[in-house]
């Protein structure tokens, strides 16, 4: 809902993402803060921010598949893994630069997503959720069982830092602006897709696929497209991740990671791109908090063993998922939207 006195006089204005001058100003300030961030924060915090940027690309992809098109995907980490491995192979075996390797990783992940999108065309609900778990197991199996000269097997794979001309992206501070730019492009792209015909088809299929089919929407095609897009985002995120960590192995892309991504989406709110970003940032902050505080806590209470970090991560993740679904199933963005509507209408109740 727009504030009082703002009227759209053309279709372009009506579908605009940024609607008021105050919003332009806020966006500009936020962008400037993001650009200046690496000079203001410590190297550790820059590394955390990089991780958040990469993760938010993956979660935005999940938001497209699950939040908008309603296709449950428990295998997002596997698609991310396909992107990471794809980019590493292109870089290490063929020696291509990173600006080729990253899109190739995305396209390979999109192909994997397409294969599972085809099953989604016939299967739905529980059965679909479970076949995407199969994607997770198949990914691990394939990587571990191909000859280790291809994908590194159990030992994983090391990469060279990304290069662009004379620029070498070998530190978190150097990578930050590259990641920020990529995330901005991907997020803007997601907004664009979701405002288009395809985005409306996603929402129609999510709300009722039988009714959507009767209105002339190509339901199997739409489901397949949702998976392809979501997996493409995961692949790009995975490829960038590979360049940040400069090491890939299968245990970075487990079912557990997929569940974390879903938790991030639930916390932010299903069906909201901004929600995906907010959820990612909040959950990552808590994860960092637990990992940093864990060892201190063990020193403080010596009866706790060193597994307390892993155990409390589990308890936290379980509580977040069940708590949000029971108490605030629409996520934090829903709360924020209610608040925004209230202050725009104040002092009137509605």
């Amino acid at each position: 809902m727009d504030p009082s006195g703002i009227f759209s006089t053309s279709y372009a204005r009506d579908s605009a993402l940024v609607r008021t001058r105050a919003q332009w100003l806020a966006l500009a300030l936020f962008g400037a803060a993001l650009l200046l961030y690496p000079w203001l924060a410590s190297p550790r915090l820059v590394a955390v921010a990089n991780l958040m940027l990469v993760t938010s690309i993956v979660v935005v992809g999940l938001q497209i598949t699950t939040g908008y098109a309603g296709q449950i995907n428990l295998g997002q980490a596997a698609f991310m893994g396909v992107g990471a491995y794809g980019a590493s192979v292109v870089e290490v075996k063929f020696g291509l630069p990173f600006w080729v390797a990253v899109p190739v990783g995305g396209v390979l992940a999109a192909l994997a997503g397409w294969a599972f999108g085809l099953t989604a065309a016939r299967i739905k609900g529980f059965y679909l959720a479970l076949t995407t778990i199969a994607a997770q197991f198949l990914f691990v199996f394939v990587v571990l069982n191909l000859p280790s000269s291809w994908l590194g097997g159990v030992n994983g794979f090391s990469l060279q830092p990304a290069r662009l001309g004379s620029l070498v992206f070998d530190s978190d501070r150097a990578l930050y602006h590259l990641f920020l730019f990529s995330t901005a492009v991907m997020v803007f792209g997601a907004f664009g897709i979701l405002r288009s015909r395809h985005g409306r088809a996603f929402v129609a299929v999510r709300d009722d696929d039988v009714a959507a089919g009767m209105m002339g929407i190509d339901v199997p095609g739409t489901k397949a497209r949702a998976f392809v897009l979501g997996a493409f985002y995961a692949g790009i995120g995975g490829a960038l991740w590979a360049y940040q960590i400069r090491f890939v192995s299968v245990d970075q892309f487990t079912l557990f990671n997929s569940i974390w991504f879903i938790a991030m989406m639930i916390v932010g709110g299903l069906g909201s791109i901004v929600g995906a970003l907010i959820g990612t940032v909040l959950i990552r902050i808590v994860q960092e908090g637990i990992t940093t505080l864990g060892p201190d806590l063990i020193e403080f209470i010596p009866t706790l063993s060193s597994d307390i970090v892993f155990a409390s991560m589990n308890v936290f993740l379980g509580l977040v998922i069940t708590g949000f679904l029971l108490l605030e199933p629409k996520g934090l963005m829903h709360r924020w939207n209610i608040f925004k509507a209230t202050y725009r209408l104040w002092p009137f109740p509605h």
Partner: protein
Amino acid sequence: MIIEFFNYALNGALLGLLYSLVAMGFVVIYRASKVFNMAVGEMLVVGAFLVWWAVQSRGMHPAVGIGVALAISVLIGLAIERLLFRRLIGESVFSMIMVTIGLLILMRGLVLLIWGPQERQFPAIIPLAPLILGDLIVPRSLAAGGIIAVVCAAGLHWFFNRSRAGLAMSAVAEDHQIALAMGISVRRSIAFAWALGGVLSVITSMVYLSGKSLTFLSSEIGFAALPVALLAGLESIGGLLLAGIIVGVVQGLTAAYIDPLIGGNAAAVVPYVFMLVVLIVRPTGMFGWKRIERV
């Protein structure tokens, strides 16, 4: 050669029946509440730790200890219904499935906090010496598991398809709102489902872990049993036995004949590939209900 083949096939089939016993945990809860319980593996581990705690740690007589474990397990099942699923009646598939995944992770964390990650020796409730039938060698726990699986399947099949209470629960599995309109208590049905799930998890854990070591990672069998439940179709209890035997035999023969050829662990992934193929051809599994959808 041929004896060896039969030995692999028979052991595979019995392992498959153990999977179908685990998968019964999925189907029983689904048939009475329309909730697909992803936390079956974790419930099994909790049941196993309860038996271990009562029999091994507290030193109770096995019969008493198992009784205590069953009682606590039922209480946990009822608590899960009261705290989580009572509020979710009529919610979307996504919420239901994600809450059970949240429950899975939560239970794993709590098991780690309470009992820690150490390996524990699970009491040998079923004797360890293998059964020898002519040339065939069968572990006694698997043989007992096969018999228990068949008995449980027969009993539950009768309950859900013939008895009045079971048919009322089947109505809940079809549609919460319509069941409510017919005067069926959805709450009581879901509570019963989770209590039954608790009982099954204790029984299964004794068959699966008898005499083996127990850690929080024993829950992996929950995911290994997934293909069995999907292959049978989520609504069919009798079909689980057939699906379990198919998956078990395929897996057993893959482990015996294909794994040495490729030098990898294909047996772990074959059930999933098999399941994907079946689901693409028949999306509701072999014996699942075909739902007719209206706008």
